């Protein structure tokens, strides 16, 4: 079965410092990996995805993520954090080995707090 783990409930970082939000996954086949962000009282907004190719993926708002197959990780990063980045971040995976329109499975989320 496919699953996602986000080991940190909360990440605190000072404005201007680099940030990392961790994600590890488990699938039977190859993964399709996604990051979403959720602001208060809003739905989920897409940030970036890894399907195939270059292990470093660049996305919206200056975010990037690195796919590491040997460590089954897909950590989200940003070189310089902004206060406006404070939100709830979700990692999600699809297992390409499963048949049909496989649903996206989400982690429990990591709350990012950027302090001015």
């Amino acid at each position, binding site marked *: 079965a496919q699953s*996602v783990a*986000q080991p940190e409930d909360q990440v605190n970082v000072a404005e201007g410092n680099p940030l990392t939000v961790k994600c590890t996954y488990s699938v039977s086949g190859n993964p*399709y990996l*996604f990051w*979403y962000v959720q602001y208060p*009282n*809003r*739905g*989920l*907004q*897409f940030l970036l*995805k890894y*399907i195939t190719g270059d292990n470093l993926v660049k996305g919206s708002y200056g975010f990037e993520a690195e796919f590491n197959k040997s460590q089954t990780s897909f950590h989200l990063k940003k070189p310089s954090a902004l206060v406006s980045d404070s939100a709830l971040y*979700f990692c999600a995976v*699809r297992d*390409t080995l499963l048949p*049909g*329109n*496989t*649903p*996206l*499975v*989400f*982690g*429990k*989320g990591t709350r990012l707090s950027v302090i001015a």
Partner: protein
Amino acid sequence: DAGVTQSPTHLIKTRGQQVTLRCSPKSGHDTVSWYQQALGQGPQFIFQYYEEEERQRGNFPDRFSGHQFPNYSSELNVNALLLGDSALYLCASSLKGRINEKLFFGSGTQLSVL
């Protein structure tokens, strides 16, 4: 071009009642997925509809049912509400078979069961 729209935005019900939530997918999309997001948790997959049939289902009881209409809009019905059904219900739309593409989410319906 409208994105995914959900109604109502908030709903308060009492235990044992029934509720219907509605979703219109993004223009051009034919697949609707429903997720339940409890407080402090990630979204949990309920079920997915395309071609007016339930295609995939997560680990939710039969009290949770749905429907998709010919215009691709969808409803989520929950019967015999329990306190534990209180959550944000999210609708997401996509294109059938495009598993390498992102889901587009609505803003959700916040359901409170008292």
